């Protein structure tokens, strides 16, 4: 723990916005009841790949309360909008089962649902493309055979999942047009590297389609502004990104779209403007406010989960434990729209160890499944599962302690990243060292004391890292006439970041935490900020808040100096007032901020208002690494895995609000448990989602998750506010790997696919 004299930073602070959420007064997007509101219900395709022949809606239109039923031809969409948004309602070609084909607008939810069920769609079936590997073959049918579309690169970039210098190369093998993207990272010469290796381990690892699982489904209310534009109340992680998508899709100027970010009932990467273009278009057509909130079934069929992948990884190491080379071939499903985490995974595969030689090829393949979106650390949990499994096999063959083996190979400051750039200061080594001396790892030798019967225990380690996202950000900090300090940002509070901003501003200004407010404004009024994703908000917007508070502080001291007839540098801010340093707390030597602020407002007032401005464009990543331990018990008779203990260490740079940081880590670990043991969106052989409700799609419940011990490592980042690094992404990454390695430790069986369901594991155990 860092020893400091900071008053606010580093203390566990309760959520500033908790009361409204605790007493039912918080208004989420679906709670807005605008006058004249219409309720929307989509009609989803029941075929995965088809020519859309026609839509029969006479019976549906006859339902009392139905106002209109829209199809693609009715939408005021411009040419050249983002591909997926442009097909918010299917046009000529239906490309996945669940794709919206029509949208019912009605006076009530009930009427809309009743009518949607009566809409009949005529299909002319086309070959359904589902098998990832087969779809890459030049002879494969195409997932999109009637129409073409481009790549939506901006969305991938905003999550920090871009190739980061990855060279795009001409394809070296003959591939189907289903392959919509490729990436290639290369360093040194892997043939030489493997030749120098004493041991080589390799494996193929399959990962599933996984849904972000936010409890509040995709929800949005759009209302025409009467001047051709639209105001959108959205459950979105990024108001500027959503504004851009809507404006591009509808052919509006960005200023004609005002996005108001409502409290988000969970996002995790999945809420960056999915249903907003359609809802906005419907509102403009109907000239009335429209609410579209997906049902859970619709969200599982038609939102944007993260896609399945197949990762082939081969790593060589010398007898002394040094890795010599990594070769990997990653294939990611990208469903009907190119937006897979291929590039992020390619980096992550080689992102935790110093491989002198590497050759990583990534492929993104279109199929007739729904289009993917980002999900917390896109591509990284998959990469970690594959690489950490192979690293564990290598440690076994080298007869090295798995943590010691990893410590021999972790990069440190100045070592090359997979893309050739140098790593800045990182805390991966520290995270692993903390685990190596942890009692759970120390007791590992005794873990098998009860092994030998039906139940086997094992302990595994996993490692993961996140480069950290970057995006310019600005913040304002003004003091209102009552002396309250208002911080205005364009970011969205997902997990308590506004509370952290409040702490940053209070610490920087020197005022009481209670005097500070943080306001998230709308896309028209807020200063720019990136979307709340990629573990970048505290790192980027937090810096802007710190700078805005510094600016405001200087203005306060300047004005106080005039009042107290002292030089600003001789003044200090304490609590709610400014006083002359070293002088007693008497009125002659101090003035309240409220008093100062009162002199900057009102008719005839003589001083300019205090309004601080903070801007920044972070250019250096502040990577966050995490290393985890899992202890499991495996029932050999059923294949069931029980998690007994869990330890998560993470370099957070500086835990500005330890309560929020620990909450993020524990929550991410449980999402990782979902990755490892439970969650998968399953499509049948016709491309139908067969896990279309939360009865079938298994989110982790309180009873099946263990107590998670957090170990906070603080290696300050050079540029983050008070040394902070991004926290949200790293802790989800190594979980599946740690669990898989614990299962291997317990049973000797090496899981080749996640989630590791009882059926899968039992089959592997039974096969010996």
């Amino acid at each position, binding site marked *: 723990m860092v020893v400091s004299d900071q008053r606010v930073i580093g203390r*566990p602070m*309760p*959520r500033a*916005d*908790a*009361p*409204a*959420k*605790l*007493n*039912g*007064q*918080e*208004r*989420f997007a*679906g*709670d807005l*009841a605008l006058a004249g509101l219409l309720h929307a219900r989509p009609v989803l395709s029941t075929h995965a790949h088809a020519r859309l022949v026609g839509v029969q809606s006479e019976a549906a239109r006859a339902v009392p309360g139905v106002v209109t039923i829209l199809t693609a031809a009715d939408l005021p969409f411009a040419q050249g909008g983002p591909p997926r948004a442009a097909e918010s309602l299917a046009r000529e070609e239906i490309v996945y089962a669940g794709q919206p084909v029509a949208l019912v607008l009605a006076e009530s*939810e*009930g009427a809309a649902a009743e009518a949607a069920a009566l809409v009949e769609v005529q299909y002319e079936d086309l070959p359904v493309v589902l098998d990832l590997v087969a779809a890459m073959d030049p002879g494969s049918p195409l997932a999109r055979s009637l129409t073409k579309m481009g790549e939506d690169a901006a969305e991938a970039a905003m999550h920090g999942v871009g190739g980061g210098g990855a060279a795009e190369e001409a394809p070296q093998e003959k591939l189907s047009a289903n392959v919509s993207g490729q990436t290639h990272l290369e360093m040194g010469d892997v043939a030489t590297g493997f030749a120098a290796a004493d041991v080589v381990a390799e494996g193929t690892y399959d990962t599933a389609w996984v849904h*972000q*699982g*936010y*409890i*509040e*489904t995709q929800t949005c209310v759009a209302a025409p502004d009467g001047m051709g534009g639209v105001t959108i109340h959205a459950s979105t992680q990024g108001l500027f990104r959503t504004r851009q998508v809507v404006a591009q899709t509808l052919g509006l100027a960005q200023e004609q779209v005002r996005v108001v970010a409502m*409290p*988000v*009932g*969970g*996002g*995790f990467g999945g809420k960056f403007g999915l249903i907003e273009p359609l809802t906005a278009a419907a509102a403009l057509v109907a000239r009335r406010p429209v609410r579209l909130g997906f*049902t*859970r*079934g619709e969200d599982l069929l038609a939102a944007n989960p993260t896609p399945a992948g197949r990762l082939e990884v081969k790593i060589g190491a010398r007898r002394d434990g040094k890795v010599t080379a990594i070769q990997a071939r990653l294939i990611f499903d990208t469903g009907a729209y190119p937006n897979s985490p291929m590039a992020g995974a390619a980096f992550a595969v080689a992102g935790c160890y110093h491989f002198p030689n590497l050759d990583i090829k990534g492929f993104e393949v279109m199929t007739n499944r729904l289009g993917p979106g980002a999900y917390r650390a896109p591509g990284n949990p998959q990469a970690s599962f594959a690489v950490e499994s192979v690293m564990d096999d290598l440690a076994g063959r080298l007869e090295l302690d798995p943590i010691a083996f990893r410590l021999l190979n972790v990069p440190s400051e100045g070592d090359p990243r997979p893309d050739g750039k140098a790593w800045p200061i990182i805390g991966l080594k520290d995270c692993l060292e903390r685990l190596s001396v942890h009692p759970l790892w120390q007791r590992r030798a005794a873990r098998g004391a009860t092994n030998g019967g039906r139940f086997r225990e094992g302990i595994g380690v996993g490692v993961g890292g996140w480069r950290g996202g970057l995006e310019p950000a600005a913040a304002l900090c003004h003091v209102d006439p009552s002396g309250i300090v208002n911080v205005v940002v364009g970011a969205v509070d*997902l*997990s*308590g970041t506004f509370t952290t901003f409040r702490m940053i501003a209070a610490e920087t200004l020197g005022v009481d935490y209670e005097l500070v407010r943080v306001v998230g404004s709308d896309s028209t009024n807020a200063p720019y900020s990136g979307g709340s994703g990629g573990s970048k908000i505290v790192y980027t917007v937090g810096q802007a808040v710190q700078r805005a508070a510094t600016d405001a502080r200087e203005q306060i001291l300047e004005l106080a100096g005039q009042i107290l007839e002292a030089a600003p540098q001789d003044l200090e801010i304490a609590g709610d007032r400014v006083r002359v340093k070293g002088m007693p707390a008497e009125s002659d030597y101090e003035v309240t901020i409220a008093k100062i602020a009162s002199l900057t407002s009102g008719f005839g007032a003589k001083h300019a208002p205090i309004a601080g401005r903070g801007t920044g464009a972070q250019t250096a990543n502040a990577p966050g690494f995490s290393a985890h331990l899992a202890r499991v018990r495996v029932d050999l008779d059923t294949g069931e895995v029980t998690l007994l203990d869990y330890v998560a260490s993470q370099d957070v740079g500086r835990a500005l609000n330890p*309560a*929020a940081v*620990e*909450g*993020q880590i*524990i*929550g*991410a*670990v*449980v*999402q990782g448990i979902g990755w490892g043991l439970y969650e998968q969106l399953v499509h049948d052989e016709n491309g139908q989602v067969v896990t279309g*409700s*939360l*009865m079938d799609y298994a*989110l982790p*419940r*309180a*009873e099946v*998750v263990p*107590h*998670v011990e957090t170990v906070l490592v603080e290696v300050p980042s050079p540029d983050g506010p008070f040394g902070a690094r991004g926290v949200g992404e790293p802790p989800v990454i190594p979980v599946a790997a740690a669990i898989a390695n614990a299962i291997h430790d317990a049973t000797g069986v090496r899981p080749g696919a996640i989630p590791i369901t009882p059926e899968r594991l039992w089959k592997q155990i039974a096969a010996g």
Partner: protein
Amino acid sequence: MATHPISLTINGKGQQSSVESRRLLVHYLRDELGLTGTHIGCETSQCGACTIMLNGSAVKSCTLFAVQADGAEIMTIEGLAKDGEMHPIQEGFWEEHGLQCGFCTPGMIMSTYDLLQKNPNPDEHEIRHALHGNLCRCTGYQHIVKSIQYAANKMQGATVAD
């Protein structure tokens, strides 16, 4: 669509309404009474975001028609705080960081209310078992467990003091 008169007590106040046969209780509470603190997360009674207290027991309000609540006594999240004072359960969720996005929170609090009324001193296993019908995607449940322990302690202390 046929409508039915219903009469019930909600958060201590009498309420008469006429509801469609197909109207779910959760939609009645949210859309007709404006009690939007009760949330909808799944429609198949898996997530528990719509949990309310009905005649003294926690129920998922998406599993009942409004007509079935005729004559019932209902408490929603809006009815928990008294005279502006947070209930110890709400206080516990605040103090112990039992919420992140806050969407599952009202349902979690209602299930906790039910639990602590039946078992004032639950251990961690009993708490986790009592939450098996409520999904949270943000917190990983651990701080929710701590919040409930906080509330149980506080409520027991209050009982002793009485």
